[in-house]
């Protein structure tokens, strides 16, 4: 459990860490949307290169980024297998057995789906890797400010979100501890059928929930004790400002998004051109 990377802050100093959190949040949202428009392997490759470059600039080892996939590995396998066998589109079936069919189109779609999920998780992980909880809250709060006009308590929503994020590693730690304690009382989590295993989790889940409620109560008291809700206008220690590096980041990111959309709608997938180019090169060498 300790190895789950999602939702953790990677505490180093880098230009990416210092970027305006609002920008990073907007980028991440746009990134998620853009991922659904990626249509060619070339574009996937470009995005992967972009993420690796991001790792480089933010001083985060790429292995940490790749580890974030660990949490969705079952989902990944399940979706790609389902896609592989039950692809709904037009197919030129190569292999069929009962209701299972495999076709080049299905393989293509399963591969792309897998890449999309992997890149989605890795990209969004970069946000939490490079942005601390406080910055994240400040960023969300600042972005949602307009909603204050229609009487939505943006500040409270932002703090709720940041507390939820902050609690993920704490609860993981807690789960570890309780699991160990129950194991030392002879609890067995690794054998038996699925129902037995689910039941075996109760001695972990119940103390975990009780603990979470207790912690929430304590936190609420701590917030009250510091007069969290007392003054309607709260100032902050760190003001978010827009700097030159933010402008550079904006340009780079805009270029990436532009490439993906151009690739889909104008070029129609760069893959065919690359295959063509490859063929020409092969022909050229054959001609020699």
């Amino acid at each position: 459990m300790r190895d789950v990377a999602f939702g953790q802050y990677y505490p180093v100093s880098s230009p990416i860490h210092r970027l305006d959190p609002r920008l990073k949040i907007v980028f991440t949202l746009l990134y998620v949307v853009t991922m659904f428009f990626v249509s060619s392997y070339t574009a996937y490759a470009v995005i992967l290169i972009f993420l690796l470059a991001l790792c480089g600039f933010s001083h985060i080892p790429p292995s940490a980024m790749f580890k974030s996939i660990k949490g969705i590995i079952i989902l990944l396998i399940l979706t790609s297998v389902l896609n592989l066998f039950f692809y709904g589109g037009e197919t030129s079936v190569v292999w069929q057995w009962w209701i299972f069919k495999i076709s080049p189109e299905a393989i293509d779609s399963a591969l792309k789906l897998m890449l999309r999920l992997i890149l989605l998780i890795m990209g969004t992980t970069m946000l939490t890797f490079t942005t601390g909880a406080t910055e994240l809250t400040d960023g969300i709060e600042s972005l949602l400010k307009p909603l204050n006009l229609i009487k939505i308590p943006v500040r409270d929503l932002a703090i709720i979100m940041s507390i939820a994020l902050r609690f993920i590693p704490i609860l993981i730690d807690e789960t570890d501890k309780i699991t160990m304690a129950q194991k030392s009382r002879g609890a067995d989590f690794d054998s038996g059928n699925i129902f037995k295993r689910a039941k075996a989790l109760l001695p972990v889940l119940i103390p975990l929930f009780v603990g979470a409620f207790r912690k929430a109560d304590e936190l609420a008291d701590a917030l009250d004790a510091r007069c969290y809700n007392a003054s309607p206008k709260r100032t902050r220690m760190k003001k978010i400002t827009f700097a030159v590096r933010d402008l550079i980041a904006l340009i780079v990111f805009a270029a990436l998004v532009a490439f993906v959309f151009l690739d889909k709608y104008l070029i129609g997938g760069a893959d065919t051109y690359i295959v063509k180019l490859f063929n020409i090169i092969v022909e050229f060498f054959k001609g020699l």
Partner: protein
Amino acid sequence: MPIVVKGLSFAYSKGTPFEKKALDCVDVEISDGQFIGIMGHTGSGKSTFIQHLNGLIKVQSGEIDVDGIHLTSARRPKPDYKKLRSTVGMVFQYPEYQLFDETVIKDVAFGPKNLGLSKEEAFARAAEALRLVGLDPDEIGERAPFELSGGQKRRVAIAGVIAMRPKILILDEPTAGLDPYGKEQIMSLICRLKRECSPTVIVISHDMDEITRYADRLIVFSEGRVAFDMPMQELFKHGQELEAIGLELPSCVSIADNLRLKGIELGDDIVNMDGLAKAVVKAARERGIECGDIASVRWYGEEGE
């Protein structure tokens, strides 16, 4: 059979940038019937060490032998974890946070049931364990653990481990977060358990004054190594070294040292308050001051022990 640990090393997140060495070539031997105190600063590796003794952490390098059960880094033969966990009872920090069942008796019977005992047997053991920790199974057995007071909850949690009848009992800061009276009660409970069911006891503690009253031997961890493992009389001559690794001398030793500076020699073998009190009485008599006998320092209402 004793506990023998040889060349035990362990690192968390091995092979990642977060790699953190927790234990570095630890050699310890613990014979039967000892009351061991383990001390050390936060992050000194003491918790990692005791978790190894219960097979909760897989050995990375080195060997452990607990009551004939052999733990190594090899995958096979697989050690008999069930037997290990019934031999070594482990009470974690704030054990009351691990209670989960609807009733106290069911929660305490969880361990014995996992050992494969029948329901009746498990409940009989649970009732016995509750009595051992000083709770009446008829009175609180059917209550929900969450209704109990803090001290009672901790007793119930300890009973949950005792019900497995471990020969070796390990407790990680059993008195953390209790008031002085509660601390005293838990510590005398541990002494009673040592006499009546688990002859070997290992206690992690941060409180020098407390642990020196009970332990036969102290093992001090620092930065993943055993820094000191010697009789307490010897240990407290290393006052400066202890302070360097973040531990304080017990107050009885500092009092004796200060008295020595004033010219009152009380002898070298003072390791706890009882010893100090006796030495003070003796020294006073030598100077012709009349005073009564002190059998034992009475702390906070010990249960007539």
